[in-house]
């Protein structure tokens, strides 16, 4: 796998064994908080003060309590729906813009590119106040659209897609043009399928960051019915008056979906995150 591993793999070296053990131990430490969270969510309230890791009488009681009024399900669906719509919008528009900037020759191209890129320098925290004012004026406060509109396109995604489209050979596109396909069809049917790894990377990154987004949904929503999962969890944790077993159950419910998806699609997710990170 690695450059250095192959010539020495067969020799026994105590140093490497120790390194492996340390790495492995460190890895276990990394997941300890998650493990405690899940273990505690299975405990009865009387048990949370004794520090045994495993619950003596595992129970799903906490999950029943937390899920019974349906609000977690609602928040889950909100988060899922919002992250999905925003991701689809980003995948479509970011690649459309990236493609246009990479493959079309026209005046103003460079200006548009620089303008979009420059928005990367503006922290979203600087925009929340104007966005809030905008949402208030347009009546978008406390609505799904209000949560979603700032993130429908990102400079990061555009830049990522532009870089990938630049690697697509022009010959392919020319051939399609000669076949009489219009420009949108060339983009949609020829160019886009050539950059699927980048698309999935962008989709994973966008979905994840919207799934965990906190400050903007916190500001823009007022009704509980519209909370996203992180915001809902915060309000739930405060309301539960420090009943840790319930808070841990809520936290576990907020964490479970991404962990499950990760365990199923580990390879793609890591690759996608690396791709988005390095090229973006």
């Amino acid at each position, binding site marked *: 796998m690695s450059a250095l591993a192959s010539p020495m793999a067969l020799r026994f070296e105590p140093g490497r064994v120790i390194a492996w053990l340390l*790495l492995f131990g460190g890895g276990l430490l990394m997941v300890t*908080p998650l493990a405690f969270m899940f273990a505690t969510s299975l405990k009865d309230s009387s048990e949370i003060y004794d520090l045994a890791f495993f619950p003596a009488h595992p129970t799903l009681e906490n999950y029943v309590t937390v899920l019974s009024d349906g609000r977690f399900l609602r928040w889950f669906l909100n988060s899922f729906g919002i992250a999905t719509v925003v991701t689809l919008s980003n995948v479509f528009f970011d690649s459309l813009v990236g493609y246009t900037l990479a493959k079309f020759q*026209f005046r103003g191209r460079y200006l548009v590119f620089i303008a979009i890129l420059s928005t990367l320098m503006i922290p979203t*925290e600087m925009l929340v106040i104007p966005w809030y*004012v905008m949402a208030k004026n347009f009546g978008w406060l406390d609505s799904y659209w209000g949560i979603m509109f700032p993130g429908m396109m990102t400079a990061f995604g555009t830049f990522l897609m532009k870089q990938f489209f630049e690697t697509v050979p022009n010959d392919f596109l020319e051939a399609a043009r000669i076949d009489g396909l219009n420009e*949108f069809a060339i983009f949609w049917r020829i160019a886009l399928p050539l950059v699927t790894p980048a698309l999935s990377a962008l989709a994973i990154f966008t979905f994840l960051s919207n799934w965990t987004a906190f400050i903007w949904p916190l500001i823009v929503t007022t009704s509980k019915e519209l909370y996203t999962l*992180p915001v809902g969890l915060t309000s739930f944790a405060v309301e539960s008056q420090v009943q840790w077993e319930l808070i841990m159950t809520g936290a576990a419910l907020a964490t479970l979906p991404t962990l499950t998806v990760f365990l199923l699609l580990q390879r793609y997710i890591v690759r996608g995150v690396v791709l988005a*990170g390095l090229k973006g």
Partner: protein
Amino acid sequence: MNVSSSRVDARSGARLWSGLGMRQKQVLWAWSFLAVPVLFYAVVRFYPTLEAFWIATTNWNLLTKPSFIGMANFKRLMADPVFWQVFRNTALYLLLGTPISLLLAFIIAYHLDRVRFLHGFIRALYFLPFLTTAAAMAWVWRWFYQPVPIGLFNNILAWLGIAQQPFLRSTTQSLPAVLAPAIWAGLGFQVVIFMAGLRAIPTTYYEAARIDGVSNWTILRRITLPLLKPTIVFLVVFSSIGFLRIFDQVYNMTSQTSSDPGGPLNATKPLVLMIYQTAFSSFDMGYAAAQTVVLFLVLLAVSLLQLRLLRDR
């Protein structure tokens, strides 16, 4: 949307369209693709940016009309002791967070890169926290930091016979205590990026060095680190921006029913939390906007400085 409208245009002006040359058609296509995005960037990014600068020069509580007060908000900021405390905290998040997490991530990646046995599993262990929701994990960590009998850390200390630590209830320990979950959650991302960077270094360099009998340490210093520079630059900038914008962890670990967000005694309050409170608890929009301008300038300065420093060397 832009596509269908351009199709309609094309049909109605069919004759006009066929009269256009290849290049002109391309230009029209390009702008029709860009129409909605350009509008979006203008309305949702550029206009709000200018508006933020404008609001920063006003006194405005959302209820009345904003009144122009020039640089008064910035003067008030400079004279506000809480702002300087917050500024110091934000710098601490950055100056502690970035080096610690990068150093840890590099050590892990460097060794993990050489591991074959259970490689994928160990990588997954480090990567998992990156996928968690900060708001949720903040509560888990908050629970860990409690005094005995419920807090995990203090119970371990008690078991080892070491004195109890106040963690979140201390003006000195609370900031590192809030920072820890942020480092923890970001580590996996940095590890996989570092590993990708390590993989990209051509094997031939190492082989040549090994034939020359160079020590591992020298290889690391002379070959690995210089060739990793683009990766390091990226990670330093990326994680610095992250730590400068820390919010979720602080908000969830320090506020409660009897709330003291950013406490105790403002010891954990970062700039973004101050902005949030000024804007959305006190509705002092002008003052909050002035704080966002400072955040913008800090981010700009830090990114430029780091790019400069790391590029030059």
